[in-house]
């Protein structure tokens, strides 16, 4: 703010001049000729003299672009509805809307081109930091102005100009030009940081545009396919987690008004593209995603858990006498890109856990375990902040998820250190299994549901975690001292099986083993016949097994 006298007017005059040059026939390829001429103009007006001045110039340009867009969109709305409330577009209004979009773009795109050219031509080719500093400056301005716009205009906020600036700037800076190669990764990082700042939880009115950018073919290609050594994967997983965190409270209540259904369905489409093109990405980042997705959001979670490496051939789960423990991949430890133990809170719990796993002390550990996992503070993790202790809020899901996986990983390492593989006998009678059995017995229905979900979230493609946790779930079923536990294990599996496809391989083989292996006496339980449609469902699954 507090621009020098006359800067705003000067900016507008200069920007208009640039826009004219940009659209003229003599602009030259990539506006190169126009740019050479215009830089002189900027120098004459002293715009490039100081860092502060060019920042102010850019800020005024962004505001100018925004105002132009708003004006032209408001014109359309006036024409369409005589000033009434906007209605979802019909054909004629869509034409009007696209015409004024073109007008908007004819102002915004030249500005973006100017920014991109200034970035490309700033600093020496060998010193990319000047370029990236300039990019971060502009992106920071767009964020600042947009957030100010949101706070000022609330429901009247209009995402179009910001969407256009960010999208076109990303496309400009990802063109296959040698001058950009040295900053490709830094550009991805800058945009990731910007989109994280503008994440839906902070800028809900920008969510649709945000997801358009994050799932744009060029953005996905750069992030997941082209960036070397998969350096974009961690960045992209952070953005996806931002989206899940925003959706979580609404999905958690399964009350999906149209705007949310739209966003949710859009998210499913993006995940399907990732499942099809980058399954390894979903495999390696599944843990963080499942921490953010609410436990009742079954199909979306199944979609993520169904991913398996493209070079892997999954044996048909219904193969008679399938010997899971003979599969070559079953002993391989899956990659998980986060430090699980850091999610086990409070620290005291983690220390006592390690101590208990090592030498089964403190002996009170098992009796205190549930208390540690109960929510005494507003829940972290799935972004739902209700007051602790409310229904569905008694436990810290993130800590419970981490504890289960952490203990499982320790158990697998322990078993493998003895040259064994997980089986009903090798997983039994261990500190690890004591903890799991204690959780199964000691928890109330809600807590046990979260606990069993934490296990079921590891039932994926053939790997050592799938194997161990499949055995664990079956072991807990077999050793349960109350039918309620067995029923709840069945429910957790069943609710993941009855939803539409896809279904994780590990889930299928666990359930098939449960209903096929007579040692679990599955069919003898009353709950199998609790309702005709449930009984029919079990029988239909059983038939497909036989």
């Amino acid at each position, binding site marked *: 703010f507090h621009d020098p006298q006359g800067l705003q007017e000067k900016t507008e005059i200069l920007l208009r001049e640039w826009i004219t040059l940009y659209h003229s026939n003599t602009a030259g390829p990539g506006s190169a000729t126009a740019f050479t001429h215009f830089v002189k103009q900027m120098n004459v007006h002293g715009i490039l003299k100081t860092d502060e001045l060019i920042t102010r110039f850019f800020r005024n340009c962004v505001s100018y672009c925004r105002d132009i867009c708003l004006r032209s969109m408001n014109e359309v709305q006036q024409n369409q509805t005589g000033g009434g409330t906007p209605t979802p577009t019909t*054909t004629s209004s869509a034409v009007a*809307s696209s015409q004024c979009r073109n007008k908007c773009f004819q102002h915004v795109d030249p500005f973006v081109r100017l920014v991109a050219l200034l970035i490309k031509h700033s600093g020496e080719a060998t010193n990319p930091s000047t370029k990236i500093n300039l990019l971060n400056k502009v992106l920071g301005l767009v964020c600042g102005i947009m957030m100010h716009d949101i706070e000022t205009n609330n429901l009247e906020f209009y995402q179009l100009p910001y969407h256009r600036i960010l999208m*076109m700037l990303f496309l400009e800076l990802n063109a296959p030009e040698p001058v950009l190669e040295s900053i490709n990764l830094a550009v991805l990082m800058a945009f990731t940081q910007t989109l994280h700042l503008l994440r839906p939880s902070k800028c*809900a009115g920008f969510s649709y545009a945000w997801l358009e950018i994050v799932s744009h073919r060029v953005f996905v290609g750069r992030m997941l396919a082209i960036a070397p050594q998969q350096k974009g994967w961690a960045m992209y997983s952070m953005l996806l987690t931002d989206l899940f965190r925003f959706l979580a409270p609404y999905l958690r209540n399964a009350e999906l008004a149209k*705007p949310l259904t739209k966003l949710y369905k859009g998210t499913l489409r993006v995940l399907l593209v990732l499942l099809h093109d980058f399954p390894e990405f979903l495999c390696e980042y599944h843990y963080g995603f499942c921490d953010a997705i609410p436990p009742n959001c079954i199909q979306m979670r199944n979609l993520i858990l169904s991913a398996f490496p493209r070079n892997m051939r999954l044996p048909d789960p219904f193969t008679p006498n399938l010997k899971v423990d003979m599969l070559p991949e079953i002993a391989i430890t899956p990659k998980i890109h986060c430090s699980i133990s850091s999610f086990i809170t409070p620290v005291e719990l983690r220390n006592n856990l390690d101590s208990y796993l090592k030498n089964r002390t403190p002996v009170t550990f098992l009796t205190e375990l549930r208390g540690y996992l109960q929510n005494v503070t507003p829940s972290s993790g799935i972004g739902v902040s*209700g007051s602790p202790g409310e229904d569905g809020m008694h436990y810290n899901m993130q800590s419970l998820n981490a504890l289960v996986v952490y203990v499982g990983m320790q158990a697998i390492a322990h078993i493998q250190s003895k040259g064994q593989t997980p089986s009903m006998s090798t997983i039994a009678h261990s500190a690890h299994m004591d903890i799991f059995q204690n959780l199964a017995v000691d928890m109330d229905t809600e807590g046990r549901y979260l606990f069993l979900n934490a296990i079921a979230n590891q039932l994926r493609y053939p790997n050592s975690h799938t194997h161990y946790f499949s055995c664990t779930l079956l072991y807990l079923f077999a050793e349960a001292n109350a039918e309620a536990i067995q029923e709840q294990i069945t429910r957790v599996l069943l609710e993941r099986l009855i939803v539409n496809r896809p279904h994780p391989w590990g889930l299928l083989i666990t359930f098939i083993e449960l209903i096929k292996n007579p040692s679990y006496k599955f069919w003898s339980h009353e709950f199998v016949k609790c309702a005709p449609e449930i009984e029919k469902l079990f029988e239909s699954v059983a038939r497909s097994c036989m």
Partner: protein
Amino acid sequence: PLGSTPLSADHEQQFKRLQASYFRMPHSADNERLKIHFPRQPVVTPQHFPQVPPPLSDTVDFFQRLSTETLFFIFYYLEGTKAQYLAAKALKKQSWRFHTKYMMWFQRHEEPKAITDEFEQGTYIFFDYDNWGQRKKENFTFEYRYLE
């Protein structure tokens, strides 16, 4: 057994903002460079029109079965896109060549004979470059010319 969780005031407010933007959904064209002639699905076409491109419509084989005129139209009207790239490949498969200096496509005759240092005997698509450049409608010509 989790039951529902009360939404916080912040969630309520964010939802209202999401809802407001729902009535201003982005257009697919918002993500694309401005294309004067064929922006990406700017309008809803009547349902009885084909709503989805035919299968494999983004392959050279598909383009190769298009008429020469159609391929020229695509080449000159959809420049800078994958369609232009595919049209160029299909034209080459139909034994056309691109004269890079005059942006004209031409077909060599059986015994190519150089006429000047820039042109050789063949069938040229005369493309009214000047009128095209100004996107003029009137006297816009697009014709085969035999250069003997």
